[in-house]
Every structure is written in structure tokens, then in C-alpha cells.
């Protein structure tokens, strides 16, 4: 095969790719002080803020102090995470201890925190799925320290630091089926403990109780792959659902809110949103099919009383679906508010990462 035949496998860059490429180059500033955030960076920044203010304050780690933590901090643990979880589910494999620290089912979503540690509580390198021992440990370094001296692989680092490597994993299934989910993980207590946060969708329940299989594994050189499983039962929070038709344009930006879909339980208020971009009000600089470049996906849930961001619940933001190619219509998960939100109005504020500022706002009566 020729080099050109190889290159043809992935085709030429699309018009959107070209547009974003050029747009980004055009916006570089000589001072190199421009802030730039994609929606993902905004979400991760929020997660890091949560991490710094939450239980992870005491954490340090053996990977790269600060850097590792900065990339693998707690994701979307609801602020004031107190689910009322009463059970004490624990499994052990070899010399490892797996424990469900907290868990709850709200609607059809399970949120659970599992901690993994050695029984003797000594530090170790807990490696989760997808990471190989011949990966460079510096690949976990988000500081992009290209001149770093650290060239060891994970295996070499563990050998030099006298740390045993354990390949571990934890997930939840129901009726033998893996459910769609998400998660995050981080180290605690000088890497004596790995915490795995997961969120699993489409959980079924019967009479207010969800029965699940909690599956774990440990793998090491000596003993190979060792799976284990146990059945757990979790109470399901009661919830109410309702839809609010909005059909309002947001002043100052070409966004029209169509409706909010809400679900409220004792734990949190989930908010989904449907909106579209008004083509007649789109800025001239926005090219067709580059709605993502507007960053209007950065919509935050705000308390209208204080004009501050509401405490974030466990539901992960994003997940917008582009429903209509021609008219840039979006529908999807906006986020959730932790706790029992009692207000009858909620404020949405639109954050423009290019300006690093809110640029528009709308109050919506939700009950």
C-alpha cells in the first residue's frame, strides 16, 4: 500500500475540522494569556473545585503530587453526599478489601462510591482498566512537563518505589447486563486507598428496591485474574417528574429554551433541557454545523435568590443530543441540584468560556 492509500483511510479533514482549526489559530493571543475552555474543561474544572473542597483535601498520592490529583479527582459527588446508605457491603479478594462507602438509587440512576485498599492498609499502585504497566507514569502528568526527567514506566516506578501493582475494577450489573454508566476514580490517604465513583443508568426496581450485582476483580502477576461478585439491594428514592413548557428566547443570545424536564427526589433535582438556536439571530461568524463553537452548552443552574451556582448534584452535565441538523436543536442532560430544592423558580446562566464570563440569563418558573 502506498502512503496515500494509508492516509485515505481516514479521509480529509472535514469543513468543521478546518473551521475549528482556523478559528483557534485566529484567536491565539501574543500575550498567551487567553483563557480557553471547552465544555469538557469547564466540567472538569468544576470537578476539581469539588475535589479541593471535599473529602479529598487530605489526599496525596504516589504518582505525581497534585498533577495526578488534578486529573483524577472526584467527579460529580453531590455536595454534602449523605444518602442515608445503611448497608455495609464488603468483598475481599486476596489481600485487597473492596467496600461500598456510599450508594443510592434515585429514579433509575445508581450512584455509588467504592473504595479499594490493602487489608494491611499499606500503599500500593491500584491500576484500573485500560491502563497498562508499560505505559509511562509521566503520561498521567497533566502539567505537560516535556522536560521532565521521569521516563519510567508504571512497572519500573512501582519496582523502584517498592509498591505492588494491583489491577482492580468495580462495576454494577443487573440481570446479567452491564448498564450504561460513567465514573471517576481518585487516590486517598497517600495512595492507601483508591476510590471509584460510578453512576449507572437504567436501573430497574421492584417495590422500591433495586437488586444489583456488584462485580469486582483483582489481577496481579502471582494470582492472575480473580473476579468476585455479590448481590446487593438498595432502596430507591421516590421521585416526581414533570415538564415545564418554556418557549422563551434568552435575551442577548440566539438561544430559545423550549422546555425543561425535571425530576425531584430527596437527594436531588435533575434537570434536562431542550433548546434550539435561532438561525435568524446567529452571529455572522458562526458557520453552519459549528454550533459547538458557540459554547452555549455551558449553561449553569443558578439560585435566583443568591445568583450563585446551586450545589451540584450527582448527575453529570453534558450529554446533549443534536436533534435536528438543519436547525441546531439540542436536548439532553443539563445537570442536577444536590439536596431538596424547594424554590419555584430556577435561573439558567450562559457561560461563554472565551470571555470567561456569563453573558446571558433567564429565570424559569418550574412550579
Amino acid at each position, binding site marked *: 500500500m502506498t502512503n496515500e492509500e494509508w492516509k485515505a*483511510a*481516514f479521509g480529509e479533514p472535514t469543513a468543521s475540522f478546518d473551521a475549528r482549526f482556523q478559528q483557534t489559530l485566529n484567536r491565539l493571543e501574543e500575550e498567551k494569556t487567553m483563557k480557553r475552555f471547552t465544555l469538557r474543561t469547564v466540567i472538569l474544572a468544576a470537578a476539581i473545585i469539588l475535589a479541593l473542597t471535599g473529602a479529598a483535601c487530605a489526599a496525596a498520592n504516589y504518582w505525581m503530587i497534585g498533577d495526578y490529583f488534578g486529573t483524577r479527582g472526584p467527579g460529580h459527588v453531590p455536595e454534602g453526599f449523605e444518602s442515608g446508605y445503611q448497608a455495609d457491603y464488603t468483598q475481599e479478594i486476596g489481600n485487597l478489601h473492596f467496600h461500598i462507602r456510599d450508594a443510592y438509587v434515585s429514579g433509575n440512576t445508581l450512584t455509588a462510591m467504592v473504595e479499594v485498599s490493602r487489608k494491611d492498609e499499606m500503599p500500593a499502585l491500584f491500576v484500573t482498566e485500560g491502563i497498562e504497566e508499560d505505559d509511562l507514569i509521566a503520561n498521567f502528568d497533566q502539567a505537560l512537563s516535556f522536560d521532565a526527567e521521569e521516563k519510567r514506566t508504571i512497572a519500573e516506578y512501582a519496582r523502584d518505589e517498592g509498591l505492588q501493582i494491583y489491577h482492580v475494577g468495580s462495576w454494577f450489573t443487573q440481570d446479567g447486563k452491564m448498564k450504561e454508566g460513567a465514573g471517576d476514580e481518585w487516590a486517598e490517604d497517600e495512595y492507601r486507598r483508591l476510590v471509584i465513583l460510578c453512576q449507572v443508568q437504567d436501573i430497574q426496581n421492584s417495590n422500591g428496591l433495586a437488586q444489583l450485582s456488584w462485580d469486582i476483580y483483582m489481577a496481579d502477576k502471582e494470582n492472575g485474574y480473580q473476579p468476585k461478585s455479590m448481590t446487593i439491594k438498595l432502596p430507591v428514592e421516590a421521585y416526581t417528574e414533570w415538564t415545564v413548557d418554556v418557549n422563551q428566547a434568552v435575551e442577548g443570545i440566539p438561544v430559545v429554551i423550549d422546555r425543561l424536564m425535571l425530576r425531584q427526589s430527596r437527594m436531588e433535582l435533575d434537570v434536562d433541557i431542550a433548546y434550539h438556536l435561532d438561525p435568524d439571530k446567529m452571529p455572522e461568524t458562526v458557520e453552519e454545523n459549528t454550533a459547538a463553537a458557540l459554547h452555549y452548552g455551558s449553561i449553569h443552574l443558578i439560585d435566583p435568590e443568591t445568583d450563585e451556582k446551586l450545589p451540584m448534584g450527582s448527575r453529570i452535565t453534558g450529554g446533549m443530543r443534536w436533534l435536528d441538523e438543519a436547525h441546531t436543536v439540542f436536548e439532553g442532560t443539563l445537570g442536577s441540584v444536590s439536596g431538596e430544592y424547594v424554590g419555584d423558580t430556577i435561573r439558567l446562566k450562559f457561560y461563554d468560556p472565551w470571555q470567561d464570563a456569563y453573558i446571558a440569563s433567564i429565570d424559569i418558573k418550574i412550579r
Partner: protein
Amino acid sequence: MTKEEFARRAEEMKGPMHRVACAYLRCEHDRLDAVQETLLKAWKGLGRLKKPEYFNTWLIRILIRECTNIQRHQSRVRPMEAVPEPPPNDAGKAVEVREAILALPESQRIVVVLFYMEGYAVEEIARALRLPKGTVCSRLNRAQGSN
């Protein structure tokens, strides 16, 4: 390096960056995000590039890091339905090659892309991926064995 020079060199790398992003990320929007972040981080971190002759490799390494970050974050967010991809304008062999590449484990896929598509030498790939040269060779061999 001035902004104009940076932009010129980055433009020369647009094709390779697109192909590397395709090797990691299936969704077009993810590739757009990865490339945007790569260009911004590269511009901001330009002072750390001690040897300008390694600019291309350095840019690819940042891109791989961004792609990996997006993949990791994707596994931690509720999957969203991908924005409809434009239909590929190809047929036959190109599709075959693409599917074969995408079927490879990621660790092998990227070395195949860099070696066969972008014509990188083993040493350059090792530098880009921060891997020992032997590891690059063994992953190439395994990838070839898969076909």
C-alpha cells in the same frame, strides 16, 4: 516563534493531526475539541519546546494526550448520541483499511498511524509516545500480525 510561524507550522500538521485524532476518537466533535485544546496548549507551552525541530512530534504528543483525556472523560460521563458524522467520501479499500486500523488495540493503532500514515521513524514515534523504541517495534509487529 511568532504567532504567524506557529500558525504556519501548525497548518502543516493539520492533516496528521486529523488522522491521529481519528485513530483515537470516533466522534467529530471530540476531535474538534481535542485539536482546539492541543493548539491552545501548544501555543501556551511553546516556551518549553527546547528544540524547534521537534515541533511536529511535540504537537502530536500533546494531541495524543488530549485525545486520551477526552477518552477518559468520556468513560466518566453519560454517553451522548454523537452528532451525525458527515458520510465518509470513500469506498472499498479505504473503508477496509480504516476498519482494520480501528479494530486494533489502541496502543497498536497509534503506532500504525504514525508509522504507515505519517511516515514517522521508530525513533520519532518513541519520542512522540514517550515509549522505549523496543516497545514501539513490538507493537508494530503485533499490529502487523493482527492483519
